[in-house]
């Protein structure tokens, strides 16, 4: 399962950043109809290779220009909310574990051999504040002199924008260096901090900061798919807990909002106490299947 996940993560990261003409003149970023669709994960649409839009960036821009909507139905970002809500209802945070390019980058750099640390759990609530304040409230209400809002999460924090967008663009268009200012150096510092934290603490950004993960996590308890715990098979060996990249205790925290359904715990369990399945109707328990452990 781990290899399959790595393969899908690689294919998604490369497949959605497959615009390879940027070094050969013409547009420095992809400009085409695919940009009408958002990436289900966090992927900067200013990355020269990006084929899809970033859902977080797009939604903030909808919010930022909300008060400029004139005539007809206002542009509220309903398309983004509908799209992400549909994905969240269907698969919850599975997207974070299998599809998100920035999650994949964190998985890779966490393999760097250093001492590893666990996360102070209350920090997990920060991402909901980031979602509410920086993605929704601030773009609407923190406006400049002309009354235009800004995508504050992109502007102040988003490490995907700095890594996937800023570096390649500054390399391709050196003239952009003339406009580099305080915001860039702030974002560079944030990127370095987040990358160092992700080396030391598994999936640090996803667990603490990511507003997209926060949104998807709202559906963890109702999504169509679930990580199923089969109590009768569990011997409480703790193998699942040791493998979990987001610090979930699968046999105690059912349908955890932190679970990204990477299924490492399913692989780690030799007693088949965990399974990935369609959600059962309430009151219908999972079947206990006694198995010989395959150690």
């Amino acid at each position, binding site marked *: 399962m781990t290899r399959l996940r790595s393969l899908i993560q690689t294919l998604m990261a490369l497949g959605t950043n497959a615009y390879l003409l940027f070094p050969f003149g013409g547009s420095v970023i992809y400009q085409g109809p695919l940009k*009408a669709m958002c990436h289900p994960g966090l992927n900067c649409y200013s990355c020269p290779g990006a084929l899809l839009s970033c859902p977080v960036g797009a939604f903030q821009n909808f919010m930022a220009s909300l008060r400029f909507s004139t005539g007809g139905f206002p542009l509220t970002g309903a398309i983004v909310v509908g799209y992400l809500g549909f994905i969240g*209802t269907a698969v919850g945070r599975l997207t974070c574990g299998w599809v998100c390019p920035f999650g994949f980058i964190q998985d890779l750099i966490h393999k760097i051999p250093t001492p590893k640390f666990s996360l102070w759990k209350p920090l997990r609530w920060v991402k909901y504040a980031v979602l509410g304040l920086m993605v929704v409230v601030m773009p609407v209400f923190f406006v400049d002199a002309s009354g235009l809002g*800004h995508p504050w999460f992109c502007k102040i924090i988003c490490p995907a924008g700095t890594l996937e967008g*800023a570096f390649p663009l500054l390399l391709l268009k050196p003239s952009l260096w003339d406009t580099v200012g305080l*915001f860039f150096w702030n974002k560079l510092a944030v990127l370095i901090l987040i990358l160092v934290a992700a080396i030391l603490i598994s999936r640090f950004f996803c667990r603490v900061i990511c507003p997209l993960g926060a949104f998807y996590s709202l559906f963890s308890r109702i999504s169509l798919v679930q990580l199923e715990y089969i109590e009768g098979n569990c011997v409480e060996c703790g193998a699942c807990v040791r493998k979990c990249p987001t610090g979930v205790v699968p046999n105690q925290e059912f349908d955890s909002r932190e679970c990204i359904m990477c299924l490492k715990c399913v692989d780690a369990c030799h007693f088949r106490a965990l399974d990935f399945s369609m959600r059962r109707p309430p009151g219908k328990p999972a079947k206990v299947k006694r198995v010989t452990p395959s150690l």
Partner: protein
Amino acid sequence: MSKKVLWLIIIFTILFIIGVNAGELGYLINLGNTVCLSCIGVG
């Protein structure tokens, strides 16, 4: 599939359709076709 999930899927589908009909697809394309200066920290 529980009723709650079914309702959510219907609501989000309607939201998506509302967005499409309000012209948000065009807005998304315009957005994606320009370099986001805020994203790269130079805006």
